[in-house]
């Protein structure tokens, strides 16, 4: 698909990091969250942003952080959003769920819950998410399971949990949930653990084959560039940043995506400028919308991924015109050279 032929007047969905506050300190956290940031938006400001998104016809808001449930006004904000009919997906670490939240989520067709779990055993999960978290997360999942809540378990695939993916899928299934896998990307705290936790080319090949053989596994972001073609019909064939999605941070800054929260990529702040103006006119968004990495244009797979994930490319090489280092063309080449 060529985005230039199908420009959107507004995003399909928004990733909204509602706070940087988090009770965990995961080593791969994309936003490096732990403490609340100075100047986080208040409820009135958030409602104003919601009103803008409603007027633009945004379909879905995906909440993350930080831990969204630690934002004091999170449930009142959700109620406000649901009154407007917008679908929400809430990414939680599962350790701070309370009865009020679970009751509100139950039987609510506008709520999707995604609990993060990064291993099928305490040994693996706790190396990533912190000591003692595995059983706390399972307790959280048990609070949600068996109720009428659309539930998925999200695993960021790393070299530590790669061998447990099938087990994780079975665990998710046992709770009536689906497994969603996310790419490990070197943003936030993950920059420090990138070299140790990233998949090697053989693992990328195996992951690609595993995903191709199991369409029930959910993949949220940019797997199109590392996966084989059999899966392409299940999702996008290009990076959606600034084209279908954008990210709002806890202080109202708007970025191309959650993995590109660098000051130089910021489209503006919603305390000063309307979302619509950022989407239509900001230099950063206009740039990303036309970005086609130079190093990829001669690749025979260019039409199938259009350069893959610019966040990975940027944080590895500091060059937006370089290729996604984990793309299928790259790992195939590496696997081939080792034979």
């Amino acid at each position, binding site marked *: 698909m060529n985005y230039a032929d199908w420009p959107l007047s507004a995003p399909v969905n928004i990733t909204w990091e509602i706070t940087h506050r988090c009770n965990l300190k995961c080593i791969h956290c994309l936003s490096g969250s732990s403490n609340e940031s100075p100047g986080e938006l208040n409820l009135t400001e958030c409602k104003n942003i919601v009103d803008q998104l409603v007027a633009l016809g945004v379909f879905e808001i995906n909440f993350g952080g930080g831990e969204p449930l630690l934002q004091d006004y999170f449930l009142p904000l959700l109620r406000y959003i649901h009154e407007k009919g917008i679908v929400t997906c809430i990414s939680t670490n599962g350790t701070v769920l309370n009865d009020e939240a679970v009751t509100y989520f139950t039987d609510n067709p506008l709520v999707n819950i995604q609990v993060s779990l990064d291993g099928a055993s305490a040994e693996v999960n706790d190396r990533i998410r912190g000591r003692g978290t595995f059983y706390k997360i399972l307790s959280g999942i048990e609070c949600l399971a068996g109720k009428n809540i659309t539930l998925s378990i999200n695993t960021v695939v790393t070299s530590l949990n790669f061998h447990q993916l099938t087990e994780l899928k079975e665990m998710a299934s046992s709770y009536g949930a689906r497994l969603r896998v996310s790419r490990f990307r070197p943003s936030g705290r993950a920059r420090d653990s990138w070299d140790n936790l990233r998949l090697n080319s053989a693992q990328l090949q195996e992951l690609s084959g595993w995903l191709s053989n199991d369409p029930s596994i959910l993949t949220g972001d940019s797997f199109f560039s590392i996966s084989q073609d059999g899966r392409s019909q299940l999702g996008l064939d290009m990076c959606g940043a600034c084209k*279908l999605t954008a990210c709002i941070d806890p202080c109202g800054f708007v970025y191309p995506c959650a993995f590109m929260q660098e000051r130089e990529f910021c489209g503006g702040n919603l305390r000063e400028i309307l979302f619509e103006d950022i989407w239509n006119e900001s230099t950063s968004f206009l740039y990303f919308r036309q970005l086609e990495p130079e190093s990829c244009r001669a690749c025979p797979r260019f039409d199938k991924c259009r350069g893959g994930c610019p966040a990975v490319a940027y944080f590895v090489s500091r060059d937006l015109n370089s290729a996604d280092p984990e793309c299928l063309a790259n790992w195939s080449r590496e696997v081939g050279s080792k034979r």
Partner: protein
Amino acid sequence: MVCRLADNVRVRKESWGLLFYSPPRHKVCFVRSGDWLSPDSFAGEWTVTGLAEGIDVRTGTPAEAVERSLQKMTGQLIDSRMVVDELR
């Protein structure tokens, strides 16, 4: 054939046509319909003939001239599970 949007599917007008979105599957579908159709065209139950007649009334384009392409569009929306058909 009477059709309706599948459960929870939303439709948004874009400069090139209509954007369909299925929240349960987080899927989008692009329909290059220009200004011939609007989200209201898909409210409640509808038929291809009804859509074509609506275009005829609004634009003066004869219904029979657009009915074939509307059938194709409807088939694609059914295939992508944005629309369900209910035989009467």
